């Protein structure tokens, strides 16, 4: 591409939130018809920058230039009018409305006096899904759709706009290979039509496949911009984290052969049936399997969230029930769910309150909370985990995903768990924070606790687990002990799909 006036330019964009400088002096430019990847660790400021472009946030300083003119994008509606469309990282769909209404939310085709032209909206929606090569019942409500389907609706919503700039913030996270291939086809055809695409992703493979240029953000500043052709994966990672990718998983440690938890013939409804396994003291037991194989259901049953129909739990040599979550916690179990926002953080509370909420009983003095002890404990725990924040009084929702996860870990550690269950520990978390979270889990094991980790990322399961329990359709499909040699992705995948499929690609349906 020769010298060409950029379609879109950020000039010295700075954005500060109370106590945090999210962006400082960001200069970036985008050419017409290019796919420009934006990478960086979580909390690097990618989403904030995109929200400024979409009118959700206003910059503290700096200008956005569009088509050569400085523009102030005051709200999302203005951004839409300018032809800037976005696929948000967190879903932007209305649960109570159907697919059609969501795709054309605020841009409903209207006829007489503002009455909706539902037939036209349905037709256009069907066309978009056809273009995407996806089958979709467009009259269903969003709340009835799976996460993958919701993501597809999200993409359709963005495609329904005749956009000049299309921002995709982690569009691929829940998608399977097949859908991802389709998505890339769509991106290429949009590019040919002259649409500028800003592509945000943690998946470096995707960037090398689809992007023309890449810009790296680190701690709110642009550290590097280059043509993808001139980059290598290693170089990109180094620019992002300043560290090589190899040493991301800590040493596996040396768990004892003592058995901490002995699970026999555990069943719960149709979710899991007849599961038996033993958890050793000081080990990380990985739970692998496809979505819907019953991994998180097993954890929820152990934690008393799902009722168990049959089976027995022997913990530290005694028989326990774990009939409810509170009983499980009292027995020394703890659980960190995968959906931080819904099941983890208490959004309106600050970091201190979020840290101590599960162990407030320890800070009681004649029935009242001793704030001093509480603060000291919360401070110590968060310092140990290196939670990045200006103060403990900061609202937890202002933290990045990785730092929120650290607060949740701090909360868990204060309860001094013996059996620590964690689901998708690093979902949506950048490489640097991932490494730190792995280390925290490993330290927990060194201190004599045991970890049960559910993860959909095979490298993570293999890198972290001492042993791996593979599940398939609610049953145990196999147990892989890594002391006998490192497991391979193929090995686990073949157990997870019950040998029925070929081992290439991540077929999930």
């Amino acid at each position, binding site marked *: 591409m020769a010298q060409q006036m950029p379609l879109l330019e950020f000039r010295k964009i700075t954005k500060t939130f109370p106590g945090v400088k999210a962006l400082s002096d960001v200069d970036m430019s985008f050419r017409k018809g290019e796919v420009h990847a934006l990478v960086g660790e979580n909390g690097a400021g990618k989403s904030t920058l995109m929200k400024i472009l979409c009118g959700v946030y206003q910059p503290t300083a700096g200008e956005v230039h569009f088509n050569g003119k400085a523009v102030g994008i005051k709200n999302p509606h203005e951004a839409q009018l300018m032809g800037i469309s976005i696929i948000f990282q967190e879903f932007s769909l209305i*649960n109570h409305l159907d697919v059609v209404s969501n795709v054309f939310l605020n841009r*409903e085709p209207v006829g007489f006096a503002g009455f*909706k032209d539902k037939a036209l909206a349905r037709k256009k929606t069907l066309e978009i899904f056809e273009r995407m090569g996806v089958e979709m019942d467009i009259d269903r409500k969003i709340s009835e759709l799976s996460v993958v389907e919701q993501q597809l609706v999200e993409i359709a919503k963005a495609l329904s706009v005749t956009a000049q700039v299309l921002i995709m913030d982690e569009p691929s996270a829940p998608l399977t290979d097949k859908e991802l291939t389709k998505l890339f086809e769509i991106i290429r055809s949009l590019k040919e039509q002259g649409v500028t695409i800003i592509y945000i992703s943690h998946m470096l493979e995707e960037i090398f496949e689809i992007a023309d240029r890449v810009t790296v953000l680190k701690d709110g500043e642009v550290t590097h911009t280059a043509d993808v052709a001139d980059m290598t994966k290693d170089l990109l990672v180094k620019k992002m984290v300043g560290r090589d990718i190899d040493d991301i998983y800590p040493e596996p440690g040396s768990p004892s052969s003592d058995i901490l938890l002995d699970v026999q013939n555990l069943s719960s409804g149709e979710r899991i049936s007849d599961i038996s396994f033993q958890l050793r003291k000081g080990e990380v037991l990985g739970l692998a399997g496809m979505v819907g194989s019953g991994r998180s259901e097993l954890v929820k049953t152990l934690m008393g969230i799902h009722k168990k129909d049959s089976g027995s739990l022997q913990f530290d040599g005694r028989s326990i029930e774990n009939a409810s979550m509170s009983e499980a916690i009292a027995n020394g179990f703890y659980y960190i769910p995968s959906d931080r926002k819904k099941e983890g953080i208490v959004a309106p509370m600050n970091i201190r309150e979020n840290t101590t909420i599960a162990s407030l009983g320890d800070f009681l003095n004649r029935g009242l909370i001793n704030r001093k002890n509480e603060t000291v404990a919360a401070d110590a725990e968060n310092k140990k985990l290196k939670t990045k924040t200006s103060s403990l009084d900061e609202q937890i929702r202002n933290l990045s995903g990785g730092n929120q996860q650290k607060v949740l870990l701090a909360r868990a550690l204060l309860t001094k768990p013996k059996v620590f269950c964690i689901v998708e520990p690093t979902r949506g978390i950048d490489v640097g924070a991932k490494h730190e979270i792995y280390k925290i889990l490993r330290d927990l094991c060194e201190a004599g606790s045991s970890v049960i980790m559910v993860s959909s990322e095979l490298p993570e399961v293999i890198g972290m687990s001492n042993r791996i329990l593979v599940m398939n359709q609610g049953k145990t499909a196999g147990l892989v002990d890594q002391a006998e040699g490192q497991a391979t992705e193929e090995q686990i995948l073949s157990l997870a799909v019950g040998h029925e499929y070929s081992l290439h690609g991540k077929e999930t349906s």
Partner: protein
Amino acid sequence: MKNLSVKNIINPKELVKPGKFVWLILIVMLIASSVSSPIFLTSRNLRNVFLIQPIGLAIATMAQSVVMISGNIDMSIASAVSLMTTMAAGLFRDIPDISPFTVSLLLLLTGIAIGALNGFMAVILRIPAFMATLATSSLLQGVIFFYTKRPIGGIPKSFRFLASYKVAGIPICFFYFLIIFLVMAALLNRHRFGNHLYATGSDDYIAGISGIPVVRVKMQAYLLGGALVALASIFLSSRMGGGGPTTGDGYELDTITAAVIGGISLAGGEGKLMGAIGGVFILMIFSNFMNLMDINPYIQMFLKGMILILAVAFYAKKDSE
């Protein structure tokens, strides 16, 4: 039209869906009332229960529903009704030659002004809607008592015809209600405003980042609600031939009860107007039944409270599933 298949109508899971559940209860109540009271099925009683008595509450419940769908609540409806009925009677008393049209128009403007006040406090100043509209209620009550301490009667025939005139045996006030209902239903289900209203009430952050002007939509809901309360007051003053400081008493809770029974979510963004109207009929048949059975009105009040608790508990349980 898969929603109309036999399986879906009989399927018990479908029946407990908000909206359908209402009609099931309504049918049960109709049968129970018909069996236990010989008077219930007389044409006079039926006309009263279905075509005249519910109109005021039905229109006011539409007001409450629109505001609830937007994610807010209106606790000032009762006082607003009292104010506007009193105002209608007062206008006819103090200005002898005033035309019914002028009175209606003044009521409508007053209703919209009250809606604007509620909206200004709850939406612009972001005072929690419950508190803001409760404050409005007290404010309006004060205005009424400043003006009169006792009911004012004597509304002329020219204004009363709305509630008394019949066409082919059907009171015209029923058509009055029907037109308002059809307009509102079209607005909520077929107009883009409806989409925006449901989206805003469902999740105002997401609606906002989708480009919907959420502040304006919430404000419009209050304005529309105010206008509907005025339309309800026009009917009520016509029907009673007057108005007073207590005319609207009970309407704040009755409108919420009817809406909640009908499946309008207290959390906003969910529920159909038709369901809320079903809720109104349930309340009406309930109190008609109680009256026919000669049950003490205080016990009726108590039972109505129980109904609201049950309805809220029912939907809360459904939501948690």
